[in-house]
């Protein structure tokens, strides 16, 4: 909400010389956050210019710029035309525009100087409303008659070179505040002024307290035909509708300059007298109005719900199919004039030059009904923004009166004495009972009962004593957000000042700190980083094309991914099912930026939509029953924690100290093992074939009971190529939740033997298709309890063996818990191991 300071000063007493900054600070203290300060930050020369020449020049970048000669009178000191480059196209030779000359300053302390651009020296700039900080329009530069109205420009007699700063109100300040959704009344000067008064104690004059002509029986017929529908809890769509008529207005008259200026300052564009007056009243009192051309109305105003199949072309020129929940303004019930509280249609609109008699609608609509229509039709408007946050239903008639007064005064019409006020409000909320000690118990500041009553009265509530320390509080019409005791507590706390709240550290009951899983993830991350890997966080969004790039088969379960209804990019509408679907991008980015030796890891959840369930949405304010809660929980897809690794370049860096060694799949297997070792979980390895890995260079890691932990491998050469990764990039992905669960129980140790160790080497010839790990497992199984460890220390293939044979050299270490082993014992154990390998794999000792 943009708050022009001089307008604010009309409703609340501002100290002499107060700055926008001070006003903003006072509003922040009561909860209206500062969004910006405007005005006072444009420094001249900002002058009227007349475009004399306009030469479009296409540029290499596809843009076309205009090289212009602009008459700026004598303001440039020479009287010669200024040469200016302008990127906008919404103007013609002869137009009056706003020109800032070198030496001027635009908002944001943007200094203007003559500069060389597009092959010209551009001596200044032709400005847009955005650049001047007076609006958000992107439609190009300001053409003054369009912005200010032709009449007004003529009246002012604007000539090239004239100072525009006072004309555009740029010497005056505007405070822009953010209005939170509970404070709809602050979308008006009336509301903001009241808050300023609460913050500072300055005297406040309610602009809605004007003499209002009483309603009569012979006013324009209005029928509130909606008694409420179950979808909206039976709340009537409209419970108050004031219709006022002004006859004989000349709508071609110019809106008075002061009103135009205020509208501009508040961020609205002046359009025509009737529209400007309705907008002005909306900004002043927060009540959206609609003006109809009385002559075109074909019967009584009927406010009703839409019927399925009805359509309306709204003023933004979109033909809309209406929903039975939409509330409509119709005349005679059949012709639709407006989507109530949201936007009007073509019928019934006021046309300057034609319309002489105007019917002003000032109504109160159900906030939820307006909110839903606005959302349903993706149609947000200044009116809808206010109605859905709650408009003061007590101000309906005063707003209509103010509009009538302004139309009579500036349009030359006469107010019709027949006045409709269809008022069918029922008290939906009783007063709120408040224990006067509650603010103190809730906030921790000692508020006396007198202070509580004083503040609640100050903000407009009616306070009644109920005795025994309880008061009855009836909130004012503009505060539909005050619904229960805590909302009143907030009023007490904020008006008294949040800065008075002391700081007390609560004594928590003491908890369990981090869970095992949280600690485990930290350890794993630390271990990987300690081995040279960098932790990164990638976005979880992927597209199907990524599954193709990774070579996932058509029926691969990893293609079953959760789909977003409104993804940021249609290329990536899915939630990843593995981290390796997104982590390689980070590797590629590093390589493209010149890093060569890069090992990355990511720890995050993946989303596995293993079941299609619908989560109920049972609404606010009550605990759903256990069955519904369980349904909600069950519908949330599984999201296990994973860790993934991807690496390229050198594992052992080369440099002046010597040669390096490229990273390969064995490094990644070792890192994967270090993850499990960090958590003390033994793993098994099973040769595997699985996308996205090289079919001959991939291993599955499992727990000892066979539960899959993950896969490690070199990426398939095709995958490497499709993802643009360095050759031989290797990767791993492990399910951390499996490892965390497997490490939950404390390790139980075996006592260490201090007796000497005996070692024995064996070389076994087996077919090359035999897996190292299988031979090792056979040796372990055969050697029995005395075997302490076994390691594969050499693999030989070559001339001394048949082409399909390999020789595996193992070293076995033996130790007994209670004695020194004899040579015979060691040999017997070794022979048993070899015999087992021979039996299992046909291994022959070499």
């Amino acid at each position, binding site marked *: 909400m943009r708050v022009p300071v001089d307008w604010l000063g009309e409703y609340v007493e501002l100290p002499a010389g107060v700055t926008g900054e001070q006003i903003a600070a006072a509003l922040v203290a009561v909860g209206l956050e500062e969004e910006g300060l405007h005005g006072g930050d444009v420094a001249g020369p900002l002058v009227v210019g007349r475009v004399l020449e306009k030469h479009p020049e296409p540029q290499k970048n596809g843009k076309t710029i205009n090289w212009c000669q602009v008459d700026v009178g004598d303001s440039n000191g020479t009287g010669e035309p200024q040469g200016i480059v302008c990127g906008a196209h919404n103007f013609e030779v002869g137009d009056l525009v706003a020109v800032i000359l070198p030496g001027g300053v635009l908002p944001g302390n943007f200094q203007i100087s003559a500069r060389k651009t597009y092959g010209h020296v551009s001596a200044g700039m032709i400005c847009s409303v955005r650049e001047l900080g007076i609006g958000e329009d992107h439609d190009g530069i300001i053409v003054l008659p369009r912005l200010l109205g032709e009449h007004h420009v003529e009246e002012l007699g604007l000539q090239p070179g004239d100072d525009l700063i006072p004309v555009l109100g740029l010497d005056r300040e505007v405070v822009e505040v953010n209005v939170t959704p509970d404070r709809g009344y602050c979308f008006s000067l009336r509301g903001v002024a009241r808050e300023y008064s609460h913050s500072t104690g300055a005297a406040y004059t309610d602009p809605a307290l004007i003499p209002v002509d009483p309603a009569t029986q012979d006013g324009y017929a209005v029928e509130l035909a909606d008694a409420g529908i179950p979808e909206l809890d039976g709340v009537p769509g409209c419970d108050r509708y004031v219709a006022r008529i002004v006859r004989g207005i000349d709508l071609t008259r110019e809106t008075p300059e002061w009103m135009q200026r205020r509208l501009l300052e508040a961020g609205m564009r002046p359009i025509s007298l009737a529209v400007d007056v309705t907008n002005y009243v909306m900004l002043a009192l927060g009540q959206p109005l609609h003006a109809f051309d009385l002559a075109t109305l074909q019967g009584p105003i009927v406010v009703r719900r839409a019927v399925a199949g009805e359509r309306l072309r709204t003023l933004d020129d979109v033909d809309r199919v209406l929903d039975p929940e939409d509330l409509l303004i119709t005349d005679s019930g059949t012709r639709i004039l407006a989507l109530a509280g949201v936007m009007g249609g073509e019928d019934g609109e006021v046309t300057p030059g034609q319309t002489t008699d105007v019917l002003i609608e000032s109504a109160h609509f159900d906030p939820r009904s307006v*909110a839903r229509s606005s959302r349903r039709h993706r149609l947000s408007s200044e009116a809808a923004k206010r109605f859905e946050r709650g408009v003061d239903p007590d101000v309906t008639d005063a707003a209509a009166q103010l509009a009538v007064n302004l139309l009579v005064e500036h349009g030359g019409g006469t107010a019709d004495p027949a006045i409709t006020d269809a008022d069918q409000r029922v008290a939906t909320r009783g007063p709120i009972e408040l224990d006067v000690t509650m603010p103190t118990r809730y906030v921790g500041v000692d508020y006396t009962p007198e202070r509580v009553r004083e503040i609640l009265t100050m903000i407009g509530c009616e306070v009644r004593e109920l005795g025994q320390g309880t008061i009855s509080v009836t909130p004012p019409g503009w505060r539909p957000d005050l619904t229960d005791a805590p909302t009143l507590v*907030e009023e007490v706390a*904020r008006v008294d000042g949040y800065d008075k709240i002391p700081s007390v550290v*609560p004594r928590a009951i003491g908890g369990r700190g981090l869970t095992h899983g949280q600690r485990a993830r930290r350890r794993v991350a630390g271990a990987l980083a300690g081995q040279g890997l960098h932790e990164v966080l990638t976005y979880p969004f992927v597209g199907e094309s990524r599954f193709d790039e990774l070579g996932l088969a058509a029926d691969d379960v990893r293609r079953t991914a959760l*789909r*977003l209804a409104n993804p940021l990019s249609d290329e990536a509408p899915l939630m990843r099912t593995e981290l390796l679907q997104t982590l390689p991008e*980070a590797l590629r980015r590093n390589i493209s930026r010149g890093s060569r030796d890069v090992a990355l890891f990511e720890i995050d959840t993946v*989303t596995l939509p293993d079941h299609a369930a619908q*989560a109920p949405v049972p609404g606010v304010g009550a605990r759903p029953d256990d069955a519904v809660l369980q349904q909600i929980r069950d519908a949330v897809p599984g999201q296990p924690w994973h860790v993934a690794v991807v690496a390229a370049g050198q594992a052992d860096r080369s440099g002046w100290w010597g040669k390096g060694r490229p990273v390969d799949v064995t490094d990644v297997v070792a890192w994967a093992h270090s993850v499990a070792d960090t958590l003390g979980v033994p793993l098994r390895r099973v040769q595997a074939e699985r996308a996205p890995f090289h079919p001959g260079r991939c291993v599955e890691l499992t727990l000892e009971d066979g539960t899959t932990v993950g896969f490690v491998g070199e990426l398939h050469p095709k995958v490497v190529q499709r993802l643009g990764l360095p050759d031989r990039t290797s990767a791993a992905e492990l399910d951390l939740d499996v490892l965390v669960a497997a490490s939950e129980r404390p390790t139980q140790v075996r006592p260490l033997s201090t007796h000497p160790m005996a070692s024995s080497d064996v070389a076994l010839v087996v077919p090359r298709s035999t897996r190292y790990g299988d031979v090792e497992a056979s040796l372990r199984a055969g050697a029995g309890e005395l075997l302490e460890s076994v390691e594969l220390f050499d693999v030989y293939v070559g001339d001394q063996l048949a082409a399909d044979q390999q020789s595996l050299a193992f070293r076995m270490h033996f130790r007994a818990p209670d004695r020194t082993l004899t040579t015979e014992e060691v040999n017997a154990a070794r022979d048993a191991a070899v015999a087992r390998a021979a039996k299992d794999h046909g291994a022959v000792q070499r």
Partner: protein
Amino acid sequence: MSGPNTNYDPVEVAALAPEALEANVADALDAIAAATSLEELKAARLAHAGERSPLALANREIGALPPSAKADAGKRVGQARGQVNQALAARQVELEAERDERILVEEALDLTVAPARHPVGRRHVLTVTAERMADAMVALGWEIAEGPGVEAEWFNFDALNFDKDHPARQMQDTFFVDPADAGLVLRTHTSPVQARSLLERGVPLYVAVPGKTFRTDELDATHTPVFHQLEGIAIDEGLTMAHLKGTLDRLAEAMFGPGITSRLRPAFFPFTEPSAEMDFRCFVCRGEDPGCRTCGGTGWIEWGGCGMVNHNVLRAAGVDPERYQGFAFGMGVERTAMFRHGIEDMREMIEGDVRFNAQFGMEI
């Protein structure tokens, strides 16, 4: 060479003549002194103390002497050989010492360029920042909870008193899961874990929740569609906004240093009432530099939202609001890290450039 001769006079045997022995010793000592390396000394040893050296040969002649002459000749030869061996040993020590020193000089390495053979990797600043924040809460006696990123709409909104038609629900820029009636969203804040924790753990409850959150913002220098929050919720008997402020003060100190306090400003959130925005004291200027770039001269830096937990949130979790009350807060981990480390562009935390990581230690 002379053979054994029983009537041989040693003085008559040339090799055993004192002059000859002296000359041999002198030659030997000269050669030893002249040896400049262990190899030359080895040659000198062979020449003057080896089996074929003049002194060794002289020694052999002794055997042929008559017994009366043997003792005298033996003594003289022994003295001569002793003299030579001593000199050899001394020179050996000298030359070995020289060699040892030379080797140390020769094998010196220039270590002034770091040998980056196995550089250590790094944790990501956001995860470590979130851990640090969580640890600060653990130090206050709180537990650390988690919840799913793909969340039930009810937990993300309704359980937190976001009515379906309330503008606040529309302002969340929510990612919805397809189909639209799935009732699932990407959580827009970590706050659904408030409701989950209340339902699962009951009251009294002191729980902090670090986690990943999502909004449909395009990535730029100050926005990211995927970001992180730290949520806190405390429900007990007698908790007030003063306790909220005390907790925030402690957390601000833990993240930004001693004496850094928090400030509350009125605000609105559906799941708290009263609600507040929280700022922390600018740790650069402490509110004393109107030209401060960190806080823009305001002396305060926006941190997040907070307030007393709305009764409807308690009711949705089956907690009696007449008996229990408490507070909740949530702040951005990105924002916390950006201010702590002077990170000006959000994208640096997103892109995963190892050069960015390498600027930090493992603990930050």
